[in-house]
């Protein structure tokens, strides 16, 4: 019954918006499925089980052989997605009473089946399945399974089910392969934790708490080290005899997106740092440039040239297999500098320490840094070991004050999950000349956070009472409500009508007191944009 059971899980995961509900669905899968099915299902969900045997064209030809071409075309037109069309239209054959395949049967049979026999094999499986089973099988075979359950979420569900900290699972995750039998034996208390040995595994990251200005006074300057908080993506570099990996903050393997970095990782060490687009002159480009490199399947030489990436290193976790994490930060920093001197990897540099005598002085330094690539400062306790997760009092992030504009609400959209009955996503705009001597609003961003629950209720009611037109889930509202929007940076963008993109905009307050005509103009926002590439003010 396994492909149907997997199809059922898949269907629920796809439609379930809530994180906790997804975890509950995954828990039940781990609880009820036998080995190796549960591990294979897990691998399929986390993209660790990838088939390339069947191309979409093969699937289409299977359906075409069994259906009327006009009806297939009309149906494909209506549904849109080919896999779903085939899954739905597949004519069930009378008298088929073979049981549906297990996931393990699918995996094993595909390995040994010659290419010429694939169509008959797949058609035979489709005959044993219902529509959702067929959909799951087709998506799996064509490598197009997209579930909406991140690998991180599945590991959280494993941790929740087994009653173990997720960090312990993450440390071994990339050292075990589907169907993860040693992992499940350990999680069920039947064996020791698997030892990844030399396999490149992700080490859970040490995370920081936000520091409020009011708390700064309690800190003793000599006990703290400061460095810039760069606006890139946090990465862990793992290099060694077992291979090279770039891990994202959540433990996803993103090596494929940055081949020039993996090429430079000719060392046996684990490092923590920030991945950035760094121009030839050493200047860090705004986050929008780095975004061009994210979530891409293929990296073109042109992209590598236009958006050259590098890693700014700030911690050394392992050196030649030696675990440095228990050492104090100052000692790790000394080892990191020594290591850098010795290894000199290309495309990497050190995150420079910022000297300061008092927090007043440090606050001035922070206020002076207006580069869009800097989010603020990191404060790390000099004697802190490298510990997984967010331990209070060891690392602080001290973001610079956000920028702000008064914008006019233009459109509102309903949220997801718990917010699905509320208009909670707001597109806001600023005034600019309309070219005919008048003024028009141009949208500059979208925010869906920052307000309190009470403000959300008020906004929702206001939107419903001031709607001028509706486009599906979107309402256009009267241009009369001013919102004070704060954001971390404004960057030029040719993908936005206004020519500017905001970094992390959120609603600070509702300005019921302010008439819309007095809201900010686009030129006010343009004055806040960092021109060109940014430079750290050190």
């Amino acid at each position, binding site marked *: 019954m396994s492909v149907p059971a997997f199809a059922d899980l898949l269907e629920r995961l796809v*439609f379930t918006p809530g994180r906790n*509900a997804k975890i509950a669905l995954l828990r039940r899968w781990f609880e009820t499925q036998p080995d190796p099915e549960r591990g294979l299902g897990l691998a399929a969900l986390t993209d660790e089980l990838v088939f390339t045997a069947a191309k979409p064209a093969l699937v289409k030809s299977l359906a075409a052989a069994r259906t009327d071409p006009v*009806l297939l075309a009309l*149906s494909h037109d209506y549904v849109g997605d080919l896999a779903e*069309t085939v899954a739905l239209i597949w004519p069930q054959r009378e008298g088929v009473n073979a049981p549906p395949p297990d996931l393990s049967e699918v995996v094993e049979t595909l390995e040994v089946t010659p290419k010429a026999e694939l169509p008959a094999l797949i058609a035979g499986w489709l005959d044993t399945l219902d529509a959702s089973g067929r959909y799951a099988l087709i998506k799996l075979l064509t490598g197009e399974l997209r579930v909406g359950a991140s690998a991180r979420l599945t590991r959280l569900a494993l941790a929740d089910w087994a009653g173990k900290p997720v960090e312990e699972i993450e440390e071994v995750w990339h050292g075990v392969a589907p169907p993860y039998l040693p992992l499940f034996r350990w999680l069920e208390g039947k064996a020791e934790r698997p030892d990844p040995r030399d396999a490149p595994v992700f080490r859970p990251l040490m995370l920081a708490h936000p520091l409020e200005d009011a708390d700064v006074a309690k800190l003793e300057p000599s006990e703290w080290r400061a460095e810039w908080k760069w606006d890139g993506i946090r990465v862990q570099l793992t290099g060694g005899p077992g291979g090279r990996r770039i891990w994202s903050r959540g433990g996803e393997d993103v090596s494929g997106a940055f081949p020039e970095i993996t090429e430079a990782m000719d060392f046996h060490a684990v490092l923590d740092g920030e991945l950035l687009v760094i121009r030839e002159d050493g200047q860090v480009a705004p986050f929008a440039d780095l975004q061009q490199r994210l979530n891409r399947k293929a990296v073109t030489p042109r992209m590598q040239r236009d958006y050259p990436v590098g890693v700014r290193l700030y911690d050394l976790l392992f050196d030649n297999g030696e675990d440095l994490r228990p050492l104090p930060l100052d000692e790790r920093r000394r080892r990191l500098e020594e290591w850098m001197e010795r290894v000199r990897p290309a495309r990497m540099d050190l995150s420079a320490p910022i000297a300061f005598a008092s927090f007043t002085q440090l606050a001035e330094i922070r206020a002076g840094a207006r580069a869009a690539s800097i989010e603020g400062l990191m404060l790390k306790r000099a004697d802190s070991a490298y510990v997984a997760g967010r331990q209070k009092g060891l690392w602080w992030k001290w973001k610079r004050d956000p920028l702000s504009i008064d914008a006019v609400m233009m459109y509102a959209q309903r949220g997801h999950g*718990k917010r699905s009955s509320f208009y909670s996503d707001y597109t806001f705009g600023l005034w600019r000349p309309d070219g005919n001597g008048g003024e028009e609003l141009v949208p500059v961003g979208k925010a869906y956070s920052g307000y309190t629950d009470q403000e959300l209720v008020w906004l929702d009611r206001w939107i419903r009472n001031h709607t001028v037109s509706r486009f599906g889930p979107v309402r256009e509202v009267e241009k009369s409500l001013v919102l004070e929007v704060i954001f971390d940076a404004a960057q030029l963008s040719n993908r936005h009508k206004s020519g500017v993109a905001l970094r992390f905009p959120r609603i600070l307050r509702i300005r019921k007191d302010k008439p819309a005509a007095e809201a900010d103009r686009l030129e006010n926002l343009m004055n806040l944009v960092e021109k060109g590439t940014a430079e750290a003010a050190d």
Partner: protein
Amino acid sequence: MPPPHPETWLRVTPEGLHCLPGGFTVDPVRPVERAVVTHGHADHARPGHGSVLATPETLAIMRARMGEGRAGASQQPLRPGEEVSHNGVRIRLAPAGHVLGSAQVCLEWKASRVVVSGDYKRARDPTCAPFEPVPCDVFVTEATFGLPIFRHPPADGEIARLLRSVELFPERTHVVGCYALGKCQRVIALLREAGWDRPIHLHGALMGLCRLYEELGVPLGDLRPATVAEKAALRGAVVLAPPSAVADRWARRLAEPVVAIASGWMRVRQRARLRGVELPLVISDHADWAELNATIDEVGAPEVWVTHGRDDALIHAMAQRGVRGRALHLIGLGDDEEEDAAPAEPAAAQEGAEA
């Protein structure tokens, strides 16, 4: 003389399908002097006609929905199996299996027979009489789900999925969006058959028709208003509401709701996703692709007229079997499952009086 071709005595007019010698219109979309109504859904049964001929159940449903005065100046009940003659046209009603009281209109004039089936389905429904195939010269059919991708799975399997979800999330409220007439009562009856004997909570807009079903002899068990219950009391409960209410403000009163919608459209994922549905249930009042085709073959009509829906695909499929198809493009039909506006909740005072 051969019998006259139905095209000569049954015409498409702006009001609907009009019988010339009989002087009446089937399911007219505008007020007419004489109407024959197949069933009580709002796109088929409209207010303001002179006389209305329909099954006693459909007439009762019309009175309940429109009010006594608007459901036809005079009402003429006709039970399935009975026959009346009007200006030489013989009229009989045969069960359509769509909702309670739904009927096919069988018309015979000078030995030429047309069956106007209205909306229908062939799947089992504990709340109404099953479809009865009637041989004819022209069969008039709907084609709401007239594409081969639409095959409705057995409804009891869908109800089992709902109950498995209730078991998995016992602290959440399961709210099932379903149309007030027919779908709602069928879902309730199927839940009862599956052994769910706990109270079922209803949105105010569904209560009236459930009461009427019970008066007309369809038992539905313990039904309670969802609007007066405490949030905590609805944990683990099943609540039924109109599709438009399940993801809107009304649903905020529910405890972490799992949003389900019971509809044939739920078979297509994109449709389900657009509606923000967490648990799509493929339960339909309409014939699926296989049922449409099997029914056409069963009544044996050499010619089939398609009122609304995917007439292109259905007519293509019929042509392969030598059946002549004709698209009528009747306007105003097929809106019953697509409606978006939320039916108004009964006023609080009224509900208070009922409780």
